[in-house]
């Protein structure tokens, strides 16, 4: 079955098909597929009742709500500000633009533990920002707001980097046509530009959301990890692992994996949609 699936359809003068594909499949299987399959193997050692009880325990349920809610909000805020950043970087000229453009990727490049302790200290009671917020009665560290801030930090590049290339390739003639037909600038943006950016925005949103769901390092320091209040789902898994309860940890991991796979699938569909939009524009 597998050999039939991965057989080259036509003869090529180029060598190395068997070797490279063979190594690719071997390495993929060894590093990714077999270990991932262990999750489902471990789950099968639990009874259905045990599995259900674990994934619906109150601390887990609270963590799903928190993780989903904070990730969704963070991705939403990023979609708004990310669009503005992408717009400004593509359309306007200003001093230091190149540096700003490179800095967008900082959350990708900065290790999550560094981001974690930095945000926790920055927004802590004595931190630069925390000091300003405390008199206003706003607490960020050890609250759900802190989790939202950390997830916003790590999600920004996803939106900017998916919207930016599409914005660069937009045909100016479409905007000129709309303007010549009497549309004002806001109408051109709302009715012409934004609809063309929608697939890219949604893709970026989905990527940022997916990343936020699984995020661990940048969140745990600022979150305080209070059960039922500020514990994200990866922290619940970590807690079970620390108690060597691998069955429970795996059951919750299955929930996260299933959600991730569904998201991965929707992102693929969205990306196909984005590209289709692109090629129709070119044609």
């Amino acid at each position: 079955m597998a050999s039939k699936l991965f057989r080259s359809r036509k003869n090529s003068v180029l060598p190395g098909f068997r070797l490279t594909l063979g190594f690719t499949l071997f390495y993929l299987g060894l590093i990714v597929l077999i270990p991932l399959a262990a999750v489902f193997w471990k789950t099968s050692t639990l009874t259905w009742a045990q599995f259900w009880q674990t994934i619906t325990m109150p601390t887990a349920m609270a963590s799903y709500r928190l993780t989903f809610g904070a990730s969704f909000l963070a991705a939403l805020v990023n979609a708004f500000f990310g669009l503005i950043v992408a717009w400004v970087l593509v359309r306007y000229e200003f001093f230091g633009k190149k540096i700003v453009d490179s800095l967008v990727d900082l959350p990708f490049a900065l290790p999550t533990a560094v981001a974690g302790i930095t945000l926790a200290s920055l927004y802590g009671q004595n931190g630069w920002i925390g000091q300003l917020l405390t008199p206003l009665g706003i607490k960020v560290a050890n609250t759900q707001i802190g989790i939202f801030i950390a997830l916003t930090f790590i999600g920004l590049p996803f939106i900017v980097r998916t919207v930016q290339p599409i914005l660069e390739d937009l045909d100016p003639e479409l905007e000129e046509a709309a303007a010549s037909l009497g549309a004002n600038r806001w109408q051109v943006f709302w009715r012409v530009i934004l609809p063309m950016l929608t697939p890219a925005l949604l893709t970026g949103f989905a990527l940022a959301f997916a990343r936020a769901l699984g995020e661990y390092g940048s969140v745990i320091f600022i979150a305080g990890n209070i059960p039922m209040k500020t514990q994200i789902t990866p922290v619940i898994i970590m807690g079970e692992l620390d108690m060597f309860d691998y069955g429970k940890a795996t059951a919750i991991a299955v929930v996260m994996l299933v959600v991730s796979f569904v998201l991965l699938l929707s992102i693929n569909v969205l990306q196909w949609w984005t590209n289709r939009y692109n090629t129709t524009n070119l044609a």
Partner: protein
Amino acid sequence: MTPVATTFHTPHRVGHRRSTSEPPAVRWLLIGVALAFMALFLVLPLVFVFSQAFAKGIGFYFKTLNDPNAWSAIKLTLTAAAIAVPLNCVFGVCAAWAIAKFDFRGKNILLTLIDLPFSVSPVIAGLIYVLVFGAQGWLGLKFPQFADWLTDHNFNVIFAVPGIVLATIFVTFPFVARELIPLMQAQGRTEEEAARVLGASGWQTFWRVTVPNIKWGLIYGVILCNARAMGEFGAVSVVSGKIRGQTNTIPLHIEALYDDYNFTGAFAVASLLAFLALITLGLKTWVEHKNAALNEIELSK
């Protein structure tokens, strides 16, 4: 209705603004909002890391970095990256060669599977290796002789260096492949086919035709792969056991210092990784610049 006719007849323009740009006020407002957002979320944290790192002076900074536990963490991080990056590089080149130069069924499935590690939470990335190699793990139950042989030879995976290396390989798995696959697909196979027809061997074709073509993409992938390998926290945290001076990587050492309320020490070590992040961004921009220049030469040919 009349203005339309009059503007048609009078050639002078009312304003200097083109119909496809925004009023200056709006433009400056948007630039302001974008820069304020970036300053708050990106620049401020970066400045904060370095200012906290030197909060107790330069002496304390170097004392923290010169600690044996810090050195052991740096060595372990470099070791893990030195194994993970080349392996993922070889994998990336192989996968890209098979996918870009040949047609076969199941290609899309393979592409999705290669991306899989990106959509798995780091904590789960660590967990899967615990389930395979850990106590009562899959390996011990299915292949007890092999597991015993590993134990007899003092080769532990979990809570030891091999587990850290495996977890690092997993989280950085797609980086190089992801850069090379679209690049090599866009380049097609005509140049390699020409080389073969002219009598070059497979290896000659690869080294003299393919490698020069994919050089910048490969460097780009390696830079990103390395940054993630050195900075990974969640996955490594699960498999390491966090034994100070033995199985702590740089990010885990930062956590240990932070948990000891040695904040300045934590930020001193963190400044190393923040510096690495800045170098990564700089190199990345440089490669992108090089690549853009190269593409322009290609187009003008």
